[in-house]
C-alpha cells in the first residue's frame, strides 16, 4: 500500500498546527503561573476597608465596577511599617552570609581541586556529606550550641555599649550568619569545584613557573575566572538564606532580631480577621530583594550555568 505524496499544503499545515498548539499551551502555562501573582498584586493595591474578596484578580475600580474594591496604597504603607525591622535584620544577615559562604566555598574548592596534597579526597568527602545532613536533625543541637555552649551573647554586651549601631540582640544574627555560612559551604564548594576542574592544569603550572605562590594564583588567576560561578552561588545562597524560616525560628526565636520571614508570618492576622491586602503587600515586599538579585546577576548567572 502506498500513500500519495505529500502536497505543498500538507507540509505547511503540519508545522503550523503544531505551532499554534504550542503557543496555546505556553499561554496557558503563563496564565497558570502568573494569575496568583497578579491576584496578589491586585489585592495589595485595594483598600482594606472596601476589600470584599469576591473578585481578587480584578483591578480595584470600585466606583466604576462595583464589588472590586477601592484603589489604595494603604496596605503598602502598613507592610513597610510592619516589616521594616525584619527587612533590615534580613539584609544584615543575608549579605555577609552569602558573601562568606561563596568566598569560603571558592577557597575550599581551590584548595581541594587545584592544589595537590595527600588526603584531599577524604576531606572533600566530608564536605559532600555535609550536603546531606537534614535541617531537622540539627535544630536541637543548634539551639544548645548557640544558647548554652558558645558565650556569644555575653560577648555582645560590651560590644553594644562600645560601638554605635550594634545592639545586644545582634548576637543572634551573627549566630545565624555563621550557621547559614556553614550550612551553605558544602554546596558552594561542590559548585566551585566543578568549575575549577575544567580550568586548564597547564595554565596553573604556567603561573607556578611564572613565580606565583598558591595564594597569588588564587587571587590573580582563579578568583577572576570564577566570577560567573560567583553569580550562580550568590543568587542561590541569597534566595536560600533570605527565604529561610526554620533556622531563624530556631536561633532567633523571638524579639528584636526577628527576620523578614518571621515577621511575615504574623502580619495582617488579628482576632477580627485577616487583612488580605496587607498580607499580599507584605509578601510582595518580602520577595522583592530576591527579584532584584536575579536582575542584577542574571546575565552572569546564565554565563555561569552555561559553562
Amino acid at each position: 500500500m502506498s500513500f500519495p505524496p505529500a502536497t505543498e499544503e500538507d507540509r505547511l499545515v503540519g508545522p503550523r498546527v503544531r505551532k499554534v498548539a504550542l503557543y496555546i499551551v505556553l499561554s496557558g502555562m503563563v496564565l497558570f503561573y502568573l494569575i496568583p501573582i497578579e491576584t496578589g498584586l491586585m489585592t495589595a493595591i485595594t483598600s482594606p476597608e472596601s476589600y470584599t474578596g469576591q473578585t481578587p484578580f480584578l483591578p480595584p475600580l470600585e466606583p466604576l465596577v462595583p464589588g472590586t474594591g477601592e484603589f489604595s496604597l494603604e496596605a503598602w504603607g502598613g507592610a513597610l511599617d510592619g516589616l521594616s525591622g525584619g527587612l533590615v535584620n534580613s539584609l544584615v544577615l543575608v549579605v555577609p552570609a552569602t558573601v562568606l559562604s561563596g568566598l569560603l566555598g571558592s577557597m575550599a574548592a581551590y584548595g581541594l581541586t587545584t592544589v595537590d596534597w595527600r588526603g584531599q579526597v577524604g576531606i572533600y568527602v566530608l564536605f559532600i556529606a555535609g550536603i546531606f545532613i537534614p535541617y531537622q536533625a540539627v535544630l536541637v543541637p543548634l539551639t544548645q550550641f548557640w544558647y548554652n555552649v558558645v558565650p556569644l551573647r555575653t560577648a555582645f554586651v560590651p560590644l553594644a555599649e562600645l560601638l554605635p549601631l550594634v545592639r545586644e540582640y545582634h548576637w543572634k544574627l551573627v549566630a545565624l550568619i555563621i550557621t547559614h555560612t556553614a550550612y551553605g559551604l558544602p554546596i558552594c564548594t561542590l559548585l566551585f569545584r566543578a568549575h575549577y576542574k575544567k580550568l586548564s592544569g597547564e595554565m596553573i603550572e604556567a603561573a607556578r613557573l611564572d613565580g606565583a605562590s598558591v595564594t597569588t594564583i588564587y587571587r590573580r588567576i582563579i578568583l577572576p575566572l570564577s566570577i560567573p560561578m560567583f553569580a550562580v552561588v550568590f543568587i542561590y545562597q541569597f534566595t536560600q538564606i533570605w527565604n529561610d524560616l526554620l533556622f531563624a525560628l530556631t536561633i532567633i526565636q523571638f524579639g528584636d532580631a526577628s527576620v523578614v520571614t518571621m515577621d511575615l508570618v504574623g502580619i495582617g492576622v488579628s482576632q477580627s480577621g485577616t487583612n488580605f491586602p496587607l498580607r499580599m503587600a507584605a509578601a510582595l515586599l518580602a520577595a522583592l530583594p530576591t527579584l532584584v538579585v536575579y536582575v542584577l546577576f542574571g546575565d552572569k548567572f546564565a554565563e555561569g550555568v552555561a559553562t
Partner: protein
Amino acid sequence: MAALTLADVTKVFSDGSDDAVIAVDGVDMEIRDGEFLVLVGPSGCGKSTTLRMIAGLESVTQGEIRLGDRRINDVAPADRNIAMVFQSYALYPHMTVRENMSFGLEESTGMADAEVAATVEESASMMGIEELLDRKPSDLSGGQQQRVALGRAIVRDPEAFLMDEPLSNLDAKLRATMRTELQRIQEELGVTTVYVTHDQTEAMTMGDRIAVLDEGVLQQVGTPLECYHEPANRFVAGFIGEPSMNFFDVERQGTRLVADRFDYPLSEATHAALGDTTELALGIRPEDIELVGEPGDHAFETVVDVVEPMGDANACYLTFDRSGTDPETFVATVGGMQQVEAGQPAVAHLPESAIHLFDRATGEALRNRDLPDDDGVQQAVRSD
C-alpha cells in the same frame, strides 16, 4: 645562560601500591650553553616527564639535574629561572596579552612598573605582536596565541627554555613557518633550549642535537645527521626518517645473509664487523634502494605492489610475492620522473654500502652505512 645537565635522572610513578611505573630510567645527558636540543620519541616514552622534571613540575625520584653549577632538584619551579611553553599555550584567559606577559615579571622579579612595561614592549616587538598587546587571548588566532606564549617565555629572559610540543596545535603551513622562526629567535637569544616533540621532522630540522627516548630510556644523543646515518640501534633507525627504514630479518650463514626470500653476500669488511652474531636485522633506507635492470648479488626481483606518487618522488611498495591478500612490502623511494606502475616487476638493488645491520636480540647497531669521506656529510657528523 647556562648548561643543563641531567645525571642518571629517574622518575618512578607509584600510587602507593606495588605497581610502580618507571617513566624515565636513568637519563644522562648534557645540554650545552645555548644549545637547541630536541627530545623526541613516541608518545608515552617519558619525554614530557623529563621536561617537567627539569621545570620542577614533577619531583625527581633519583639522580640530579643541574643548571650551570647549581643543583636544582629541590629548587621551587619559580626559582629555577626557567620558562616553559606549553602545548595548549596556557595563556591566562582573563588577562590581555600585555598582562599575560607582565605577570611573570611582576611575580618573580622586583622590577618597577615602567621597567616591566618596557621589557614587555621589547619582547612583543621581537615576536611581532605589538598590535595585539591590548587584546585578550580569546580574540587571537591559534598562531597568534602561540606567539604570545613564546613572548611570555622570552620576556622572562630565563636561563633555559622548555618547550612541550608547542607547534602541535597549528596547521601544517603555519607549523613550518613557526619552525624556522623559533630557530631564528633561539639563535638570536642564545638561550639553552629543550624542545619536546613526537614529530621527527621537527626533530631533524630544528635541533642542534637530538635525544631519542624510548620507554624512558635514552637511546641516542647526537646531531640529526648522526642519528639519521649512524643510528645507535634499531629503534633510532626506525624512528628517525620518513618513510622509515626497511628492516629484514636475516640469518648469517658464513659470509652470506639468508632471508626468507633472498641471499645477500657480504664483503670481508662488513663480515668482520659482525663478530659471531648470527641473528641479525638488515636495515636500509627507502631512498638507498635503487630500481635497476638486472638481478645480481645485491639486486633481487620483486613486484611493485602500490605506488604513492608525491611529485618529487614516488614511494614504491615492493614485495617478493604479490599473490597473498596482504603481502609483506618494503618501501623504495625513486625520483618522481621515473615511471613505475603497480603490478610491474622491478629489480631492487640494496647496495652494500647503504645497509645497516642490527643485532636482532639487543637491537644494537653492529654496522652502519658507509659515508663517503668527501661529500661533507661525514665532516658534518664528525665535527660535532
